[in-house]
């Protein structure tokens, strides 16, 4: 043991893998996870071990290997500790949710493995209760081992739509429809890329055969145009590949348009510790790559601190292989959302504060050319509690589509101040026992 302390944020595959690599190299590692259990989104553990959602065997094995190594390692694990940011003096701030207090650490290095966030492109009504992300729907199933109540519509684009539709079907609750926006043909490049990754093809074949057996049709070229309340349910207007509209009344709508790196809080802090990003928050490449990337992040820290790590060639090759597979896979989908010009003015863009597309259009119509910072400070887009995680990328793309010149950068709109997430002021206050005179 060198006694040098390092901190890992995020208990998914990238974070656990980085923690193990650094512990093997002789560092004193603390692993922080915001939720009550480790696993991240991909390896989320069930509330009741007897009620476990079935996942592909290779995926289950990967987590078991990591979890067993972790249980035999000296890594200190802190669950329900939220990463609040790196403050001016370089201290890392964590919010301990059990005690409601801020914990301060000054590690020699910091690995951020914050995962990804889902992209969801706005449609009228996407802010209504009952509308969830496809990943959010999957969290419900992985946690409870049950299908959520009610009729479910799945829409957007990406392989996750298929996976979640198949998982719902396996739980006896087939979705009423699965709408895949993309109409793109299978390109030679995509085929060539996927043939190198038979595990993905095998997984997809499993999902598809389950859907086919259940009589569920994947409607390509179809998308959600709008969602409106209908009593306790949701009335969804769907447009198909030839522009015909129809209406479906359901209990839940699950939306998803691909994944984005969770970049909030990853900007370099001038006085902060040596920091490395690992996994989907650095580059969205999925669970296999996250393990390799975590190892590489751990090795980068060990090298920086003058310690020897294991050989990096294998991890780098894995990363390269997964990058090729993901880019082939991505050509099959359309993550751009619908035509923004067709969205009505009252479409909510900022889900936190209900800021609308009409308000964004008015901001852009002003005589003075609005800067990236003004989009947030004057327009209040990315100003709300989620700090732009679900609107900043779309707003940046929309602004870029509306005018010439330098497009606004997402990082510039969002800014890089701590806290990364809302923290109660009381968490910073040391409460002493009150004296009788108070």
């Amino acid at each position, binding site marked *: 043991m060198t006694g040098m302390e390092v901190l890992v944020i995020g208990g998914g595959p990238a974070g656990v893998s980085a923690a193990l690599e650094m512990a093997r190299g002789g560092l004193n590692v603390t692993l922080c996870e*915001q*939720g*009550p*259990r480790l696993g991240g*989104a991909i390896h989320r553990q069930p*509330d*009741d071990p*007897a009620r476990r959602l079935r996942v592909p065997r290779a995926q289950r094995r990967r987590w078991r290997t990591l979890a067993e190594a972790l249980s035999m390692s000296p890594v200190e694990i802190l669950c*329900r500790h*939220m990463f609040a940011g790196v403050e001016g003096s370089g201290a890392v701030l964590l919010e301990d*949710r059990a005690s*409601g207090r801020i914990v301060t650490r000054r590690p020699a290095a910091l690995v951020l493995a914050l*995962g990804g*966030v*889902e992209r969801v492109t706005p449609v009228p009504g996407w*802010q*209504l*209760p*009952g*509308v*969830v*992300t496809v*990943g*959010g*729907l*999957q*969290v*419900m199933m992985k*946690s*409870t081992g049950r299908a*959520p*109540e009610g009729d479910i519509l799945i829409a957007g684009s990406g392989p996750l739509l298929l996976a979640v539709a198949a998982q719902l079907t396996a739980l006896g609750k087939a979705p009423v429809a699965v709408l895949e926006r993309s109409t793109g043909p299978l390109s030679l490049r995509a085929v060539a890329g996927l043939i190198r990754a038979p595990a993905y093809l095998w997984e997809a074949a499993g999902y598809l055969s389950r859907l086919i057996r259940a009589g569920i049709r994947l409607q390509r070229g179809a998308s959600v145009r709008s969602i409106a309340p209908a009593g306790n349910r949701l009335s969804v207007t769907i447009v198909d590949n030839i522009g015909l509209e129809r209406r479906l009344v359901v209990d839940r709508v699950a939306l998803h348009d691909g994944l984005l790196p*969770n970049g909030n809080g990853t900007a370099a802090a001038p006085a902060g510790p040596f920091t490395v990003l690992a996994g989907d928050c650095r580059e969205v490449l999925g669970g296999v790559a996250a393990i390799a990337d975590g190892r590489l992040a751990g090795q980068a820290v060990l090298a920086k601190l003058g310690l020897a790590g294991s050989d990096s060639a294998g991890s780098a090759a894995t990363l390269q292989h997964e990058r090729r597979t993901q880019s082939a896979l991505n050509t099959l989908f359309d993550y751009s959302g619908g035509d923004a010009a067709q969205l009505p003015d009252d479409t*909510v863009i900022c*889900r*936190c*504060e*209900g*800021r609308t597309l009409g308000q964004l259009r008015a901001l852009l119509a002003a005589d003075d050319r609005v800067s990236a910072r003004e989009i947030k400070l004057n327009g*209040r887009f990315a*100003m*709300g*509690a*989620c700090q732009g*995680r*679900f609107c900043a990328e779309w707003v940046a793309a929309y602004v870029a589509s509306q005018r010439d010149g330098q497009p606004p950068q997402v990082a510039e709109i969002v800014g890089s101040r701590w806290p990364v*997430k*809302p923290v*109660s002021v*009381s968490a910073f206050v040391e409460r002493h026992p009150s004296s009788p005179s108070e």
Partner: protein
Amino acid sequence: MTSAGQTFLFDGMAIPFASNETIAMALDRAGIRTFGSGQGSSAGRYFCGIGACQACIVSVDGTRMEACLTPARKGLQVARIASVLP
């Protein structure tokens, strides 16, 4: 694990929950989809499930927390958060 009579209070109403379950999952199973009045037209509700969107913030024993990340515990006082106008 089905719970025998474990409940927390949501705006004064007893909500049953299973061991290790989050507040968000227990509320959903109780048929509650609106977790607060939120801001603008955006009511409090479950959305991303991973603590990123902040849409499911509720008051837990007086402190604002994501319902999707917070384990339910017997006797917790959970409340909808009143509307805040920007």
